[in-house]
């Protein structure tokens, strides 16, 4: 049995007798899952619009926190019971829970709060099974339920909005008080209809988005009854989709314009859009058109060309015809619109570009001034340089990297690390910041900029790094000492110059900064020379300009600076030239608003860290004022790629073509494993703690220190465990050249011998209860397993890359033999994959084998080289995370709430 509600509904409970009661000033609201993604933006707007009608919200684990709004803070509780116990009084519950939680959320709210009169369910995709139960519970307790998948209720007269986002982020703009009530199966169209009505001079009383699930809990019949009893509502618009018989028996005492859509849905065999909008033969759009035409006594659909209507109403099939139909129906009753038209529904083109194509007139409408406030915003677009990304909590989230859990391949700015591994180190460094790869000219300029500051001779940072190394620290610890010296003051001028260049050229029409024919005379005239020129007395700038010329690299910005210097007033410094190069690299993406101005202004800083980190990997004894690891600074600037320089810093020589390729691939593969990796977490945490909401105070170099402190011996990516394993296998093999397939060793036999040895070891270990026995590094993978023969697609990709080049690697081949031997000897139940960490190890070991075999480097040097190589590659991914977090993150957003932390005794 249900409680007795409105007498007109004897067979079921309805509590609302008039639309005036739908959304009132007295309603007090509790929002379930108030901090959820949708509620977070919608609820504060509703609260402010309604004069503060939300008394509290719930979010498990967030008890004690508050949702801030300009109409006061809303307290958050773990659950409804806690809110009630705390004395919160409310009669409305708004549900933003995920679908699986909706039923239980409703049951709990009903259980603990006997004063509930309304429940508004916003959630989409609530299972029908749960909707059945929710309906029954509402009926049993005498509660009106709205939705599911509705967008809530709004009363323009009462200035109250409950539940969803009717009217969007600026409800006053669309919800103009008037005399028309809206009932709509579509949430979006509820607002759109209100906007359209205003163009005919009609305002609204109550707007109600019913939802269009199979169960519409508060449906057309109940709404129609309440509409009749609302003296403010002189007429109504009903927007109806196919499916269900909710409207079949409606009888109207007041005029109604019914918009029936979805004739095409008769073709559908499954729901598309609204779950309940799938119809049989009796409740399709055609049938519903007939229902309403019969109610209104009309014999055709209303169109502007054939405006068929009666005093009772009109049926339209196009929402744009609603205002005209409403005016026509009301005119028959002698009623006029509520106010003068607000705009009209004619085509208004706000943005247009034919791209120089001679389009016919009808496809070339004039661009008109947008309605307020959009006109001002469009004007503002012209002023804005670069993008401004919306800020959000970036804990464990990234706009730079993403790992595909299926393939385990991570992408950086949309490029998989596999593809990135076919690009050079310098190209990947640039891409990490500008989100796209530089062209050949850009790469040449980047090499000059990066090599200019690589020599650390005489720098206090190098001394600190060396001291740190001597104290026994790991390479990351030592390098972070050097990076700590690259503070904001060091790059202050470069950042200022970057901003000045952007300001000078942003409206110049410069599209391609390589276009050296570009006329910059106006910028030359306008430039404040003191920003760009100093009393610099060194020779580095000359070397840099020579290097640019030697590489035949072109840049408008470099030419501009040279012209400025020629005018007199000072000299260009290398920092200024680097700033010009980074601005060049970023320019196209900046103008397309793919980058923020923050990124561009920080780029010289990132570049300086790149150079410092590579430069400081070589000890002071290998660096002199004019040469780095035995190579003249000038030569590095003029003809070395930064990949080659990194190889030089690490191994003391210029790589041949094959070694260079292998080194690039290696660095590319270890760029990133997504935002969840510990190195990324370190970098992001460092940014987060500085407060990215004021991006100017982010210490970029500290971000790198965060990355460096969050790497260590246990990192699989550094490949050291696998190297140690391979060294044990090959140390006494007499192997001279790992790249020569004619090595004379029987790898299959070596693998089988080891597999047997391992099997015996494993059996023994298990027998004595040692379950943490040593595992063979870099074989098997938690995702790529279970088949008869397993492959890690990343390893396969790299293996194919090298095979295509005819490049042989004995260690890699040994690993392939090993997984087969492990299967054949019964160690594994199927053929394990060789995983991607093995690839890193075998490439590194191949690079280092000869000096190791010659006794030139020790095991510890090998370890250090492996670790440092990993740092070089991961620096790329970290740069992307630091920049991304700076642009998108919120202050302190990587912290974990205390409620989610646990104590372990």
């Amino acid at each position: 049995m249900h409680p007795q509600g409105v007498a007109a509904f004897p067979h079921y409970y309805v509590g609302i007798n008039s639309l005036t009661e739908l959304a009132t000033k007295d309603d007090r609201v509790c929002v379930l899952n108030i901090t959820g993604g949708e509620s977070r933006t919608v609820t504060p707007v509703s609260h402010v619009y309604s004069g503060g009608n939300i008394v509290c919200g719930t979010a498990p684990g967030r008890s004690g926190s508050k949702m801030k709004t300009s109409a006061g803070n809303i307290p958050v509780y773990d659950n409804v019971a806690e809110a009630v116990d705390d004395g919160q009084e409310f009669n409305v519950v708004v549900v933003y829970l995920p679908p699986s939680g909706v039923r239980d959320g409703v049951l709990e709210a009903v259980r603990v709060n006997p004063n509930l009169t309304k429940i508004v369910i916003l959630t989409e995709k609530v299972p029908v099974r749960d909707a059945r139960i929710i309906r029954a519970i509402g009926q049993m307790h005498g509660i009106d339920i709205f939705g599911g998948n509705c967008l809530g209720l709004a009363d323009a007269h009462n200035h109250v909005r409950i539940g969803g986002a009717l009217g969007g982020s600026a409800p006053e703009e669309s919800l103009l008080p008037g005399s028309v009530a809206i009932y709509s199966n579509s949430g979006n169209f509820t607002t759109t209809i209100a906007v359209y009505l205003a163009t005919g001079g009609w305002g609204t009383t109550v707007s109600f988005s019913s939802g269009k699930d199979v169960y519409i809990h508060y449906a057309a019949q109940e709404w129609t009854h309440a509409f009749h009893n609302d003296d403010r509502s002189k007429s109504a618009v009903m927007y109806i989709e196919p499916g269900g018989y909710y409207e079949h028996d409606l009888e109207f005492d007041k005029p109604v314009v019914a918009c029936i859509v979805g004739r095409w849905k008769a073709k559908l065999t499954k729901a598309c859009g609204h779950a309940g909008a799938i119809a049989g033969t009796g409740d399709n759009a055609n049938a519903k058109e007939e229902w309403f035409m019969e109610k209104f006594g009309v014999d055709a659909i209303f169109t502007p060309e054939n405006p068929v209507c009666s005093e009772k109403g009109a049926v339209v099939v196009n929402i744009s015809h609603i205002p005209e139909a409403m005016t026509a129906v009301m005119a028959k009753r002698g009623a006029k619109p509520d106010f003068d038209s607000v705009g009209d529904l004619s085509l208004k083109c706000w943005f247009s570009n034919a791209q120089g194509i001679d389009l016919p007139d009808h496809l070339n409408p004039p661009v008109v001034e947008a309605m307020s406030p959009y006109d001002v915003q469009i004007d503002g677009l012209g002023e804005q340089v670069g993008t401004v990304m919306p800020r959000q909590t970036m804990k464990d989230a990234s706009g730079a990297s993403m790992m595909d859990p299926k393939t385990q391949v991570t992408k950086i700015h949309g490029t998989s690390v596999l593809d990135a591994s076919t690009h050079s180190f310098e190209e990947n460094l640039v891409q990490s910041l500008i989100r796209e790869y530089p062209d050949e000219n850009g790469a040449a300029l980047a090499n000059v900029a990066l090599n200019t500051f690589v020599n650390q001779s005489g720098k206090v940072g190098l001394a600190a790094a060396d001291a740190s190394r001597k104290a026994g620290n790991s390479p990351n610890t030592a390098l972070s000492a050097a990076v700590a010296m690259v503070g904001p003051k060091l790059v202050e001028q470069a950042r200022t110059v970057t901003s000045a260049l952007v300001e000078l050229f942003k409206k110049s029409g410069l599209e391609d900064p390589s276009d050296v024919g570009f006329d910059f005379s106006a910028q030359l005239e306008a430039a404040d020379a003191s920003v760009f020129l100093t009393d610099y007395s060194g020779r580095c700038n000359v070397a840099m300009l020579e290097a640019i010329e030697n590489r035949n690299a072109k840049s408008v910005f470099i030419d501009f600076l040279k012209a400025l210097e020629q005018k007199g007033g000072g000299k260009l410094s290398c920092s200024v030239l680097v700033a010009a190069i980074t601005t060049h690299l970023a320019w196209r993406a900046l103008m397309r608003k793919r980058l923020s101005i923050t990124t561009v202004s920080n780029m010289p800083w990132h570049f300086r860290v790149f150079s410092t980190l590579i430069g400081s990997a070589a000890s002071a004894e290998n660096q002199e004022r004019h040469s780095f690891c035995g190579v003249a600074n000038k030569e590095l600037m003029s003809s070395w790629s930064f990949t080659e320089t990194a190889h030089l810093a690490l191994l003391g020589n210029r790589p041949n073509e094959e070694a260079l390729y292998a080194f690039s691939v290696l660095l590319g593969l270890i760029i990133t494993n997504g935002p969840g990796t510990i190195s990324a977490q370190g970098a992001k945490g460092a940014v987060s703690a500085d407060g990215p909401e004021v991006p100017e105070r982010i210490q970029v170099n500290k971000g790198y220190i965060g990355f460096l402190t969050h790497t260590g011996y246990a990192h699989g990516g550094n490949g050291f465990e696998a190297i140690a394993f391979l060294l044990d296998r090959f140390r006494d093999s007499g192997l001279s050249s790992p790249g020569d397939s004619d090595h004379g060793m029987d790898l299959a036999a070596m693998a089988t011998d080891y597999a047997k040895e391992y099997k015996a070891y494993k059996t023994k270990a298990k027998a004595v209860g040692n379950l943490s026995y040593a595992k063979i590094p870099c074989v098997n993978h938690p995702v790529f397993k279970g088949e008869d023969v397993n492959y890690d697609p990343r390893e396969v990709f790299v293996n194919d890359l090298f095979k295509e080049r005819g490049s042989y690697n004995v260690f890699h081949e040994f690993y392939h033999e090993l997984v087969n031997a492990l299967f054949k000897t019964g160690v594994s139940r199927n053929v394990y994959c060789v995983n991607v960490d093995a690839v890193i190890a075998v490439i590194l070991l191949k690079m280092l084998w000869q000096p190791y075999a010659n006794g030139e480097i020790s095991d510890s040097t090998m370890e250090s080289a492996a670790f440092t190589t990993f740092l070089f590659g991961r620096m790329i991914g970290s740069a992307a995370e630091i920049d991304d977090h700076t642009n998108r993150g919120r202050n302190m957003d990587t912290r974990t709430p205390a409620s989610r932390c646990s104590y372990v005794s």
Partner: protein
Amino acid sequence: MNITGMRHGAKLLDIVGFPRSEVLGPEASDQEIKGLIERCGEVFVKPIFKGGVGKKGKSGLLGRAKDLSGAMKEKERLYFAEHFHNNTLSKAEGVTFEGAVPAACEVYFSITDNTEFRAPTITITHHGGVDIEELPPEKITSIPFDPLTGLKGFVISNALKRLGAPSELISPLVQNLPKLWDLYHNYGMTTLELNPIRMMPNKKGRLVPVACDFKCGFDDDDPNVARLGLPADLDTSSYSDFEQEVNSLRTYQGQSDVFVINEAGTISAMTFGGGANALVTELLGDAATISSDFGGNPPYAKMHDISRIVYKYWLKQTNVLFIIGGKANNTDIYETFRAMADALRDHFNTHGPQPLYVVVGRGGPNLIRGMGYMQDTLDSLGLPYQMFGFDSAMSEVVNFAQAADEWMKNGGREIVAKKMGIVE
């Protein structure tokens, strides 16, 4: 997802112990079929269609045989039978052999969620085995019941009494039909129909209801369906590769509903909102490649994925990329436009540029930032475009997109290609 027929229906009925006819699948051996005929005297041979396919009997797609050779002939006839129903052509994938059930009368029974009563409702008649739409109202009844208590025997009893059903039917049906509520409610069904249930006398002469055909529809949003462990491809015949790929992104935040309208269409509409979906698809007609609803404020990553998939399948043949929706309440226009624009750029990067005309009509939060981002991207790709404010009638914007499509079809595509410096 829908199921028709006893091949899977039998397994579902077994879960709740509801008596049903003997069924063999297409893999049945001659011996098994022969045995079935010997036991039942006759077999019905029915084609197996994926999904919900009705009116098979009326279309002559029901074979019956009293011996093995007859059964095999019917098998040959029906194994790959084609059936046009509800605007859809279905192709059989095998047959079932179902043992005949001798019966005094046939019962129709269904459970569904009725929108008139807004409650689970049974529909029942003891004049079953025919199209129930053809029965006069006094011979069939629909009774809602409380989902909290479930379908109880008294609901069945009252319904049958109301129909004046013979008393010997009532007890066996009261005993057995409530079992179906368990199946319906606990495994995510939205409709369940048994027609006919043949009332077979047992050895003692007492009637036993035996289900001889089965239909059900499942709620795609109900995780309980997964408990049945049904094969993944049960109802995929009507899902294209494109639809399946987009459906894999289905989460509760943000819609990702798509339906292929015309594989040779030339306007690809990224539509936001159920209402816009209805209006736009209706007006575009067969010019559209797909019907879509991507509203509900999808996050950037999801919108990027959706766009990537749409472009992958449809962009090549598309003349007009049409981004359309009303004035969004909550969907962030900047985020969704940024995702669509970035995906378009990525698509051009990986698949090469192509001539395309872009028409946009939209409103909502962060509108101008979103349009600005789209503008910059389209400018960099060299694509012609127009973007309309939300105070333009949506139908007029649709008309504009159609006009752009016509122009592209009549030489415009070549002009755009030439301007972009590409040879198609």
